[in-house]
């Protein structure tokens, strides 16, 4: 039985058998529809060329035979298009490994687009807090980071995009400061062009920081209202009067831009939903994040999840666009045996970065290295091969964890508002210091430890 995972390897095998003929094609798309059934899309010119047409037909027949229910019957398996771009529109599209002009076009049922990587934003730095699994202290760490940056005099904008389990705002704002609306309200009103004058009602200023400002935009307002009903509509695409379509991540991007224009923050902290989820993909890939913090516990659940994601980025050829923005954060590091815990975590993180996102550094040519021929006993290294790769021990590498320690005083989110309001800097630094230093470095702040 051929299952979904067999599709790409079989396609590659079949095409390999026709490699020479395939080079005659300007392009070839392997279209996987919503049900996971494969068709070929080829240039229109092929239809008029009997030789090529027959050849493509043979490929289609072989695919039908080998893929079974994951392929269309050969007589319905070939589509003709004038050019490649329109055929790819609104779909995930990436090159097939080993072929120059063959692309996989994946039609997905969800809007979540983990392979569509928006260019990094040029304005205020956007930092996304993401985790593969919930309950790792991500929101608490975000709140502490916001507090720290504000204390350093920064204007900080905080967005709660953990829409399915909102809570960040309550840790940064006392109940009486909760704003009238939330992000869900704006997204729903935007569908009916009803957001004029709404922005002010979305923003509250935290009372935690003394020197700088923390602006909080929560998931919902002081009164959540019909939250479930709104939540079920937030990722609707908006169809404008001219018939054009704006997907929800573009709408969110528009909200963020409006907020930035209004508030002129130095930095934007975004609390993303956990897991390989649609909202999360928007936060991580669509908002032009400059830094994506990947919260991690040392355990299979964390690493299997990140491995799936990283492998997908590699497969869809966006590893290079994404990898520079990533940073592992060791979350809730236990009190006991920290060194062993962290070295295990670092090793696991390194393992998946190396096999998915880092460059392979080829060995230099063998003649370039060895004893000098003049017999002087000196060793010669005549060639240095470089690439985007790191030693496991490299402290500046994305896999090298920034650390957040577990601490009972921060164990419950609910208490955070109370905690931070009275907490002393030293305690925050001792728990979150490595993370705060790391974020500070990105923003050009002095280290807190010097």
């Amino acid at each position, binding site marked *: 039985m051929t299952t979904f995972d067999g599709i790409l390897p079989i396609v590659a095998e079949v095409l390999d058998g026709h490699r020479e003929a395939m080079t005659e094609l300007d392009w070839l798309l392997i279209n996987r529809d919503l049900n996971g059934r494969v068709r070929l899309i080829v240039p229109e010119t092929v239809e008029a060329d009997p030789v090529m047409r027959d050849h493509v037909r043979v490929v289609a027949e072989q695919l039908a035979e080998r893929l079974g229910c994951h392929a269309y019957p050969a007589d319905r398996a070939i589509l003709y298009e004038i050019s490649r771009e329109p055929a790819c529109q609104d779909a995930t599209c990436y090159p097939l490994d*080993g072929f*120059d002009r063959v692309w996989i076009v994946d039609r997905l049922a969800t809007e979540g687009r983990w392979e569509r990587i928006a260019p990094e934003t040029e304005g205020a730095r956007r930092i996304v807090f993401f985790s593969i699994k919930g309950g790792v202290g991500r929101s608490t760490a975000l709140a502490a980071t916001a507090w720290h940056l504000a204390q350093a005099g920064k204007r900080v904008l905080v967005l709660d995009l953990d829409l399915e389990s909102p809570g960040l705002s309550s840790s940064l704002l006392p109940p009486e400061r909760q704003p009238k609306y939330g992000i869900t309200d704006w997204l729903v009103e935007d569908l009916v062009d009803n957001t004029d004058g709404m922005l002010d009602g979305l923003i509250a200023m935290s009372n935690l920081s003394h020197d700088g400002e923390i602006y909080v935009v929560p998931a919902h307002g002081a009164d959540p209202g019909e939250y479930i009903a709104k939540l079920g509509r937030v990722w609707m695409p908006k169809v404008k009067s001219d018939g054009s379509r704006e997907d929800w991540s573009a709408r969110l991007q528009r909200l963020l831009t409006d907020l930035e224009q209004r508030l002129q923050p130095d930095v934007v902290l975004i609390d993303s939903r956990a897991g390989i989820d649609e909202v999360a993909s928007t936060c991580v890939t669509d908002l032009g994040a400059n830094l994506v913090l990947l919260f991690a516990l040392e355990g299979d659940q964390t690493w299997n999840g990140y491995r799936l994601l*990283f492998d997908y980025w*590699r497969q869809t050829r966006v*590893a*290079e666009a994404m990898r*520079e923005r990533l940073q592992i954060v060791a979350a809730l590091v236990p009190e006991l045996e920290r060194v062993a815990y962290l*070295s*295990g975590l670092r*090793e696991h993180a390194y*393992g998946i970065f*190396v*096999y*998915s*996102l*880092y*460059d*392979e*550094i*080829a*060995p*230099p040519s*063998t003649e*370039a*290295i*060895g*004893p000098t021929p003049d017999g002087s*006993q*000196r*060793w*010669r*290294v005549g060639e*240095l*091969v*470089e*690439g*985007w*790769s790191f*030693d*496991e*021990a*490299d*402290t*500046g*590498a*994305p896999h090298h964890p920034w650390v957040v320690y577990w601490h009972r005083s921060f164990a419950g989110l609910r208490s955070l508002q109370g905690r931070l309001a009275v907490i002393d800097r030293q305690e925050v630094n001792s728990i979150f210091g490595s993370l705060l230093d790391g974020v500070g*470095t*990105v923003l050009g702040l*002095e280290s807190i430890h*010097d």
Partner: protein
Amino acid sequence: MTEAQALREAILAAPLETSNFGETPRPGTLYLPPSHLKALRLDAHVVVGSRGVGKSFWTAALQSAELRGLLGTAASELAGIEVHAGFANREAIADYPNTDVFSVFLDQGGDPYDLWRAVVLRWVAERAGQSIPSESWAATTAWLRSDPEAAARLMQHPRDWRGLILFDALDRTSNVWQRMDDIVRGLLRAVLWLKTFPGLHAKVFLREDQAERTVFNFPDASKLTATKAELTWARHDLHGLLWQRLVNAPDRHGQRLRGICRAREDSGIWLLPDDMKRETDTQRSAFGRLAGPWMGRDRRRGVPYTWSVSHLADGRGQTSPRSFLAAIHQAAEDSGERYPQHDYALHYESLKRGIQKASEIRVTEVAEDYPWVPEVLSELKGMNVPCVYEEMLARWCERFPGGPQDIHLDRLPAQHATRGWEGIREDLQRLGLIETKKDGRIDMPDLYRVGFGLGRKGGVKPRNRGS
């Protein structure tokens, strides 16, 4: 000329070469990291350090009254002391035996303890103006054994001077592990013996592997190990050393570099202020003035201040001063050639290429100390790390079908070679050349990976290659 270019010239003019073959170091190159002070104290009889950390440097420097004077209050107990070499990498047959003398002496059943005491006796006799048999080492030891009373009287004779005798490069005493260990053990016993004579001190510089072995298993050895000092270089020590060398660059070059950190002059030598010797913002930002804030366009590849040290570390996380200074010198040269218009004296790409130079030097040093290492690791050329151990093993077995015994050598073999390849692997790991990961795979730090011509595994295949 831009400021960056002028600084680059100044770096190139500074004395960054560090290897020491017994000659007296130039005064401006002397740098005492705060943590090394305890190694220079008279009660530190055993000083341990790996290759290139300064054992030979201090052996040479301590013999110079002028340089001892420069240590100032940091080493006041060294003032007025007379320093003598009891063994070193430079041949001095009148002062101490060489490899051949040791070899013959041991073949004839001699006890190294006697030979080392003979070394001390010749020194003390010469200083006291007494004549003892000195036409050969055999003669001196024979005299010691046949007339122990005369020897004891010589040692107990009241002295109006204080002395320090230094022992370095002890791996040069023999090409056989067992013998070398016996010789070192004999020396340590002789040092204990010397401790009983007031005003006379000894200091033994040992390589880490020597110190780890069983040379300390004799009665009262704990009297020596209790004050054992280690020569290691933390990041801020290396940067302190660098700046010590930089501010003493000749003429206008030194002056320009002193513009970055406030050095003070003392009898023609420039000395660093305290905050340039410790990990401070001053020290960090001083390096930033030379190399800029980042190892790339932005912070993602790290900060030059930390990057340049950590990428030269071996598998134990240690970076040698020579590697560091060589890498910086190379980076200045490379920046001048490739990026003459760059905003900083040291371009980050050039710092990366500094690894290449440091690797070259490091492998050359390793080859000198452990000739078997390049024989073994050269076989891994072209492989990628991390890899499974079996992959390495297969290469070795193909090249040396008879096992580690087949490795060609004219000096010490791998210490655990008799235990087969597993022993070799353990030696490589102990020396910091390879690392074993938790899942059992083998990795190699960049310093050696580059030097031995290995690649690094990665999921993203370089573009425009393959396919």
